[in-house]
Every structure is written in C-alpha cells, then in structure tokens.
C-alpha cells in the first residue's frame, strides 16, 4: 500500500454570509493515497466544492488539518498557498477556464511560466499532449476549440508542472456524452500511465464509476 498524499483530519469550514454562519464542512476526514483516482460524489451544497477549494489552497480551512504530501495547508499563509498552487496542485474546472486571449499552447505555457519553469519544449510532455489528443490543436485559441478539446487543454495545463494531485471539479459537467467519455478516459489514462493522483468531484454516479474509490458527501460531511 502506497503512502497517503492527502490526509484530512476533522476539517471544518465556516463561511460568514452577512450575519449568518454557514457551516460548509463539518469535520471531514479523508485519506487519499498517491496514484489513486478518487471520486467525491454529493448533491449541490454538500460541501464538495469547498473541500476542493481547501485542498487546492484557494481558501484556508477554519479548523482541522490538511496534509498534502506532508505539508500542512492549515498553517500556510496566503503567499505560501499561492506557492503551493504553482507546483503541488493542478486544477480542472467545469467551465474549462482557459484564458481566451491566448492559444492552447500559451495557456499551457503560462502555467509553466507562473511556476518559474523553463518554457523550452519537453519531449515527454509532447507525448502527454498526444495522449490527450490535442497535439495538432495547440495553435488555436479557445474559441476555435470544441468543449472537449478545451477541457483536454485544461487538463494539459493542470498537469504541465507535474503536480502531486490533480483536482477536477465536475470536469464533464459542460460536455456531451461523447466528449465526457473522452475526458474521463484521459483522466484515467493519466492516472494509470503516469501514476497521477486524481481527485474528481461530481454529482454523476456514472462519472464517479471511473474512479478507484467513491466517497459520498452530504451536509458538509463524508457519509
């Protein structure tokens, strides 16, 4: 059994909306092993997106412990969480979130640039692009790409810095069934061939079936 890459202990997150405290996470405990493809399933408002944001270093937890590859996120400052996002975490969003002014290649390159890495072409990564099936579409801007292609570019951008974990939030939410299948196939390939740890959030049990393991969330807790 490989070592855990994510360890979450009694994680709580409270949002203050006006004068109301919203308990988005109520003591979540979760362990994800390196190389695992884990799916988090739950309805809207179950807290899965909040968990995604905390694991990605986009927001700090209110209390509890979050270890990613041994680093405790709950003790990190804003600047340290920014550093963490450069190298440890890759994001894939439902709406692709590519920069519309840049080509697919530049969308990938800017992630390397922000992480302070060389922009020289990496032959190994070229193979990954071929695996993703976007090698011939790199000079196009997002508006010239289909939804499926845009999502595969987003996946390429997410893994270009070899992050410890790839976080995918409803990655097929905006895709038709054919493109959904292609994107899920790519995520599974990345997991199987490269050993990439993937944590995927979805409300669709058919999508979740692609994972090695499924955890269910409800009302801010894993059930």
């Amino acid at each position, binding site marked *: 059994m490989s070592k855990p890459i994510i360890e979450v202990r009694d994680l709580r997150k409270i949002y203050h909306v006006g004068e109301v405290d919203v308990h988005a996470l109520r003591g979540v405990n979760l362990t994800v092993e390196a190389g695992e493809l884990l799916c988090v399933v739950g309805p809207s408002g179950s807290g899965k997106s909040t968990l995604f944001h905390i694991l990605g270093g*986009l927001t700090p937890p209110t209390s509890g412990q979050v270890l990613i590859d041994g680093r405790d996120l709950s003790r990190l400052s804003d600047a340290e969480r920014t550093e*963490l996002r450069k190298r440890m975490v890759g994001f894939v*969003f439902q709406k692709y979130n590519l920069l*519309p*002014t840049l080509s697919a290649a*530049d969308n990938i390159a800017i992630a390397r640039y*922000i992480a302070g890495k060389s922009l020289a072409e990496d032959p190994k990564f070229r193979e990954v692009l071929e695996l993703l099936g976007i090698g011939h579409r790199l000079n196009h801007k997002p508006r010239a790409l289909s939804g499926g292609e845009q999502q595969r570019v987003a996946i390429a951008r997410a893994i270009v810095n070899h992050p410890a974990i790839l976080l995918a939030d409803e990655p097929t939410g905006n895709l038709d069934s054919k493109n959904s299948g292609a994107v899920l196939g790519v995520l599974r390939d990345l997991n199987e061939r490269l050993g990439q740890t993937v944590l995927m959030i979805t409300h669709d049990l058919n999508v979740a079936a692609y994972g090695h393991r499924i955890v269910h969330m409800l009302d801010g807790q894993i059930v």
Partner: protein
Amino acid sequence: MVNKLVIENLKFRPVRTALSVIAIGLEVTMMLTIVGLSEGMLADSQQRARGVGADIIIRPPGSSALSLSSAPLPQKLVDWVEQQPHVSMAVGAITHPVSGLTLMTGIDLERFTRMSGGFRYQAGNPPRQPNEILVDTYYARQNKLRVGSIVNLWNRGWRVSGIIEQGKLARLVMPLPVLQDLSGNTGKISQIFAKVDDPENIEDVIADLKSKLVGYPIYSTEEFVSLFAVDKVPGLREFIVVIIGLSVAVGFLVVFLSMYTAVLERTREIGILKALGASPVFVLDILFRETLVLAFFGSALGIGFSYGTRWLIMTLVPASLSQLIVPGWWPIAGAIALAGALLGAAYPGWRAARQDPIEALSYE
C-alpha cells in the same frame, strides 16, 4: 510570456485599446500644443524684436513686454531721445490690433530703413498712398495676397503695395501717421526704438535715460528679448501647469475607466491566473505593463497629433498664432502621461491583485 499575454489582452479589445491610446494621445497633444504655442509665440516675438535692429527699446510706463494696446507716448519724445548723448538714431512706432492676435505696426519707414536697413521686399514697394499697406510673406501666403490685392481692415479696403520678409515688427505695416489717425492717436506712439553710436555705450545710455524718464520701462534689445520667456510672462507658467493638469486628469480618468472595466471583464481570468499560482504582484504587473504600452503608443500618437494641431492652427488662424514643435517636451509629456496613466491603473490594479480567486472563478 507576460508580454505576450499583455499584447494579446490589448488586441482582444481593439476598440477599448484604440480609445485609450487616442485619449492618452489627446492628453499629450494638449500638453505639446500649449507648450508649443507658448514657446512659438515667444520665439516669434523675440525674432521680431531683434529684427528691428535697435539697441534700446523704450516702452510706456506700466506696459508689459508682451502687448501694446495704447499709444501714450508723445511723438516729440522720439526727437528728444535722438538728442541724448551717444544715441545715433531713434524711431517711434505704434501698434494696433487688426483681428485676434494679428497686429498692424505704424512706423516712420524712412527712419526705420536707416536704423535696420529696412524691410526686404519680396515684391512691390513701400506705401506711397494713404490707403496702401505692407504685409509679410507669411500673411500674404496664408491670405493669398499679391501686390495690388485689396485687404479689408477696419471696414476699409487697403491696397497691398509690397510684400516683405517676415521677422520685423508686425505682420502688417503702414506709415506711422496713417495708423495714428486711424487709431485716434494723432501725435502719439506706443514705443521708441533707439540706436546707439557704440554698443559699449548701451548700458550707459540706458542708465542715463532711466534717470531722466523715471517710471519708463527701458531695455536693451537683448534684455527685452529675454523677457519673452515662459518664466518672465506673468501667469503663463501657471496657465501651462493648469492645462497640463487638466490633460493629466483626462488621461487619468480614461485609463482608470479603461482598466476598471478591463479588471471587471477579466475577473474570471484573474481568478484563473491566481488558481495557477499567480501572485498579486504578477496580476498587478500585467495591468501596469498594459498601461505602459497604452501610454507609449498614446504618447507617440500625441506627438503626431501635435503636428496636426500646428497645421490646424496655421490653417484656421493664419498669420496669428505660432506653434512650435517642441521635441524637448516629448519625453516630459510622455512621462507625465505615463504617470497619469499608471495612477489611473493603480486602483483597478489593486482591486485585481486582491481579488479572491474563488469569487473570481465563480464570476459570470
């Protein structure tokens, strides 16, 4: 990579980018035009003062170096000045406005010719009839005048008897008595030009005249010419500063609005960059670089526009205002425009830099 993003961002909204560049261009044009006009008018006045060929200029008490709108000096004073020690010659002149900033000089042409060598005639002769005037080459060109043309001034037709080279006195010249009568100043003049027997004696003559003509501004020509400077003209520097301030305000507001809308429009993109690990400084850097590009092209456009305003002024108000192209002010105007633009980008940039990535990513 950042520069590529900056350029692509600017290309992505070409109309907004073009409007921002034009607005900064207009800001720079305003600065260069007002400075060019100030310096042009002063340089023109300097050239005309030197062109007279006098050593000493005597002005009416209380008059400013830049303008003469009345003729309070008695003409007999010319003869008195000419009799003073070391003064070899004196000539009186009267100045009267024609329209706008265009002036007519009335002068004793025979004496003036002896003092300065006279006018250089491109065509024609000195006025021989009371209804004849001289115009300079610039005025003639702008108004398409030739010898024999009739110019309508003060509701009367005046025949152009000669066209003279510009750079001496006003652009229009007529005999002294004619202008004195016309302006109701018979026997009076606006200023006196005096020639000294030896340049070594200029200061002594001025001192002597000042002791006898108490309260009269009396200058050597060089001192008089030095008064045509931005710092020496009351209120001119302040006026320039106000115009520059207004133009900076225009640039600031335009860049502020442009960047503010850009930040709002790119909220989601800022969220993406932050999710990728971009720091607040990185986000701020992008906006400041975009501002830098806008200011650079705006300044270049403004310099080009300043040639356009010069052409426009020469076309619309011929032989009146004189605008210089002032290359020395190009970097100054550019730097002022850049400072205003960066100031305008500061608040939107600050907002962008502290944008919460989760809120930004959920922005529709």
